């Protein structure tokens, strides 16, 4: 069993191999088979991960940090050494279990969803490559190994967002995602430089707890933590580096579920947890530390994105903003030091958000590529499984007990509340407000899609081909999706119901399984004292009440679907604010204006004004002068090269003469 700890490299290697095979031979392998090969590789990785879990569980104490190095990666570069190695510990094993588990389900789902796509096999190659990179990211034994996976998932995100690159918007969105992530990477890289320059290594084992950082000033460690957090903000789409994620919905829906909801975007949360020692050690003064920044960025994202979500009409964009918002919760948790709560929410969120995205994909599939919720309604009758599972996802995200989202969100809010001082209470209040909005916009979505009046009759007549691939059955009523698509929905639905039991807030008997399991990886993290049982209970009740209020408001407004004129009641109620929210606070418009305006102007000025006219102009000017002088002095010499050469020889002679005299 223990051998699995050394064979951990097989877990990323399998999907990597799958990617190579499917990329090279996918066309010959043919449509369903290529998908099944890809699914099989990641499925085997999942089984392997389960064995690895048991192998690690049988270890005790230091045995739960198992490093296995494949080869020396950076070597012969002075005192800078990095191994191509993997770290098996409770945190990474938790991550591989959920990445391979959900990954397998989404691979399977894609077998049906991508049916008929001309680039079917390539899709699976990318998906496999993504899984491999994500696994390297979470299994890496050093910041640099994580960074390798980090960039790998960025590449796959680019490839998959712009998968239907014939559409210009998809190509632009892919590029936007990669470039925005690179802005975050800038911080990540500087963080690594700083860490190396102070500690001489990038290996995680060196940074087990904050005690290991003694000797470097708190300010410097704060800088390291914040630089790493900039990287996390890019990958996990936190304000203001969130701009790429809503556009990422241009990719096929399984991609949105796997990469842009469940796994890749949580890499930032993983990084912060992995580097928790830096956040724990950091201090700026007056109780402010790197975590404060993390918590507030998370809180702002949680609330801001939730407000935007209530004004979106595209079924996937609602979920995209919802994802931003939920990621904000995770950072809020990490910021106050409740890493376990953040990771717990990461796992439950992965269940219900993947479910919701796949559900929306099933809707889009059944609606023949329609994504506008205004053209849906009453779909539960036509797609019962999708409808039922989507409702489970809705209850989970809205925080209704005993669904998964309730437990994890409740824990975050409680930890924020008890994290201390007015700030803890303020963070809690923001979180509660966001929870209210979450319950509202999700209710709005469920009613606009699955209940109320049926508004799809007109639009189904003309097939938009919105989601890119052809469907044999392009006409007629919405239909339920095939088994490969509904099976993952059922599994995820079940997980969204019971996922919360991974960690229950009871200490007698101790049911905080996840917290106990993760403890060795989060050594030395602050222990937030959970107030008295009654106050904790009251907080939970409060959270549930807020969720129910949100649901009730949503139900009241949308119980009959949309009014006949098709105008969203929220739009009229919010007045001018509606426009602000619909445009997501004008981030994108502002950025587009900046890029096409001052940025382009500046770049053009450098390229034309400076480079071509000034620098090259000067060079050509010198050339012309020499030539004219040459022409003037010796009309017999006409060869261009010879003229210049003469000037050069004269120059050389003078230089030699000068240097000679200096030498004497």
């Amino acid at each position: 069993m223990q051998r699995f700890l050394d064979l951990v490299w097989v877990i990323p290697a399998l999907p990597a191999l799958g990617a190579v095979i499917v990329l090279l031979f996918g066309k010959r392998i043919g449509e369903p088979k290529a998908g099944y090969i890809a699914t099989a590789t990641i499925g085997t990785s999942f089984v392997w991960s389960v064995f690895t879990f048991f192998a690690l569980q049988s270890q005790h104490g230091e045995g739960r940090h198992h490093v296995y190095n494949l080869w020396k990666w950076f070597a012969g570069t002075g005192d800078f050494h990095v191994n191509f190695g993997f770290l098996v510990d409770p945190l990474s094993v938790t991550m591989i279990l959920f990445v391979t588990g959900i990954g397998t389900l989404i691979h399977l789902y894609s077998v049906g969803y991508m049916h008929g796509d001309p680039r079917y096999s390539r899709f699976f190659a990318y998906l496999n490559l993504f899984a491999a990179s994500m696994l390297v990211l979470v299994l890496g034994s050093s910041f640099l190994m994580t960074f390798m996976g980090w960039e790998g998932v960025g590449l796959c995100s680019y490839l998959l967002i712009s998968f239907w690159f014939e559409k210009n918007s998809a190509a632009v969105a892919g590029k936007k995602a990669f470039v925005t992530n690179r802005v975050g990477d800038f911080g990540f890289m500087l963080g690594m430089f700083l860490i190396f320059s102070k500690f001489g290594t990038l290996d995680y084992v060196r940074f087990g707890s904050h005690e290991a950082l003694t000797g470097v000033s708190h300010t410097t460690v704060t800088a390291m933590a914040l630089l790493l957090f900039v990287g996390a903000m890019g990958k996990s789409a936190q304000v203001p580096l969130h701009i790429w994620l809503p556009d990422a919905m241009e990719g096929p829906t399984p991609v949105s579920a796997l990469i842009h909801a469940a796994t890749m975007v949580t890499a930032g949360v993983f990084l912060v947890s992995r580097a928790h020692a830096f956040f724990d050690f950091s201090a700026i003064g007056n109780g402010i530390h790197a975590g404060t920044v993390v918590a507030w960025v998370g809180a702002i994202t949680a609330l801001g994105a939730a407000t935007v979500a209530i004004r979106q009409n595209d079924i996937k964009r609602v979920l995209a903003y919802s994802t931003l918002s939920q990621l904000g919760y995770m950072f809020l948790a990490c910021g106050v030091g409740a890493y376990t709560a953040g990771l717990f929410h990461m796992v439950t969120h992965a269940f219900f958000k993947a479910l919701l995205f796949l559900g929306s994909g099933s809707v889009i599939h059944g609606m023949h590529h329609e994504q506008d919720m205004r053209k849906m309604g009453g779909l539960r009758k036509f797609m019962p499984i999708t409808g039922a599972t989507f409702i489970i996802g809705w209850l989970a995200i809205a925080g209704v007990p005993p669904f998964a989202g309730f437990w994890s969100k409740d824990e975050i809010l409680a930890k924020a509340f008890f994290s201390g001082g007015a700030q803890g209470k303020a963070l809690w209040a923001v979180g509660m407000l966001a929870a209210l909005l979450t319950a509202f916009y999700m209710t709005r979505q469920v009613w606009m899609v699955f209940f109320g009046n049926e508004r799809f009759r007109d639009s189904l007549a003309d097939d938009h081909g919105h989601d890119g691939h052809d469907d044999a059955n392009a006409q007629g009523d919405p239909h339920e999706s095939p088994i490969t698509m509904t099976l993952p929905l059922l599994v995820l639905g079940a997980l969204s119901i019971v996922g919360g039991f991974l960690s229950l807030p009871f200490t007698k008997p101790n049911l905080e399984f996840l917290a106990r399991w993760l403890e060795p990886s989060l050594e030395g993290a602050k222990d937030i004292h959970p107030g008295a049982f009654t106050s904790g209970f009251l907080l939970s009740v409060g959270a549930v009440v807020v969720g129910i209020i949100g649901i009730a408001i949503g139900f009241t407004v949308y119980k009959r679907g949309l009014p006949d004129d098709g105008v969203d009641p929220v739009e009229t109620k919010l007045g001018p604010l509606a426009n602000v929210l619909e445009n997501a606070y004008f981030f994108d418009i502002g950025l587009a204006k900046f890029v096409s305006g001052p940025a382009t102007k500046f770049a053009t000025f450098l390229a034309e004004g400076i480079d071509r006219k000034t620098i090259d102009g000067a060079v050509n000017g010198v050339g012309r002068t020499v030539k004219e002088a040459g022409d003037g002095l010796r009309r017999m010499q006409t060869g261009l090269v010879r003229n210049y050469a003469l000037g050069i020889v004269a120059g050389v002679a003078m230089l030699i003469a000068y240097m000679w005299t200096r030498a004497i």
Partner: protein
Amino acid sequence: MLTLATLPERFIQHPFNFQHQHARSFPLLTAMILVPLLGALVAMMLPKSRPEYARIVGFVATMATLGMAVFLLLNFKSSMHGFQFAESHEWIKALGVRFDFSVDGVSLFMVVLTAVLFPIGLLASTNVDNGRSFVVWMLALEMSVLGVFVARDLIVFFVFFELVLVPMYFLIAGWGHGNNVYAATKFFLYTMAGSAFLFAGILTVGVLYHRAPASGGAWTFDAGTLTHWIASSGAISQTTGRLLFIGFAVAFAVKVPLFPVHTWLPDAHTEAPTAGSVVLAGVMLKMGTYGFIRFAIPMFPKAAIWAAPTMLTLSVIGIIYGAIVATMQPDLKRLIAYSSVAHLGFVVMGTFALTTQGLQGGLFTMVSHGLTTGALFLIVGMIYDRRHTRKIADLGGLWKSVPVMSGLFLAATFASIGLPGFSGFVGEFTSLIGTFVTRRWWAVAATTGVILAAIYLLWAYQRAFTGEPEGDNATMKEITFREIATVVPLLALSLFLGFYPKPLFDRTQTAVQDLMTQIEDGTKGDHGHPGYREPHPVKAASVEAKSGAQG
């Protein structure tokens, strides 16, 4: 008799060079230079009407050179300090000029890269007009470039350094596109002008040595002897050292090219034929960075440290400025040319950080850039062959019409962006980390280059390759097997080195250690030059803390 005086010096310089005997038995490096020359002579005698004969000769000659390069690589002792495969043949006796050929870790990979790129360049050029002359010039070019990288005598180095210009001039002028004569001339004169300073510098050093008491009136241009002399005697004044360094630096800066003397490069690249661009970017630019690492810095270490802030600033400007200017280029080749300015900026920055990581990263980037940029130029050449345009605006949607070619271009794009897994990342990261430890703010500024690289390359990719193809773009011919064979080796090497850079680092590190020692020796008496870094102060203490926590 004059040269005899220098011999003991050379043995002091390379006390561990046991390969001297072995090298006598077969002059491998001379053979590597002579084989392309021989090939060129044979090709010249073949009938002009049958260019395919010349092509075969060219291919055989370059492959034979590659074979010797592989032999060199395999027999290179990575742990051995100093130079290996040394040979010495007399040339100008009165001035002590000798054909001293040898390699160390620094030159080894330049030789190998040269040997790899030339057969690929020829394979990519099977459809050029006047094939015989093309092959002749290519072989002449290979000979000159190899000479540059193995010469230890300054005069011989200079001769090869200049000789390179001639075949390159004719390749651009003869097989270029559009404004080719202007570009070729500009290239020729620009670099000639730079070389004038180098020549002046070399002559001055030689004369100074000749007049110095240490030489006893002997002449030599052997770099090792001169370095040793300058370091040990302190014979040249600070000002002289600085002036000489500037003389060398100007020539090398033009070659790199360093901002602001880079404007010949976009023109030369754009007008050059594909193989010319591949060789130009792949190895000729590296003659500049190689010159710094091989001659300018070890010979004048004090001046190099003095000039380091300026050099770092210029290279960081090159990284950022090159990237921004690249963004706005309407022509794919010009865009890649400016990206070379940015990439070579990383090399110069790492070099002048004067740390082990910086130098190692710089050397690694030199190799990596040759592979990735070579691949990019090859594919742009294929597009030009088919569409007779390199204007980004004329292209579009190619990913749909030619998926394999576009996929390879995308792979090369990400390799060039510095995606981990490709060699570019290893080089960039190592040179950045090496710069950060001593010159933090330069490294911070340079790191913005990673964002900018993604912007200009992916934006270009988006415009040229995504979208729906129209007109000629929709009917473009897919990449052929021969063309795949030119690109795939480069990308495969880049991937290999990205995952496993150790073989390269192992072989360059001894040379870098030697260089660091030379810098230390050359600056003896100066306390704490900025290139020297204190060992990590917290490392030892905190390791104890960690082990304490474990116990």
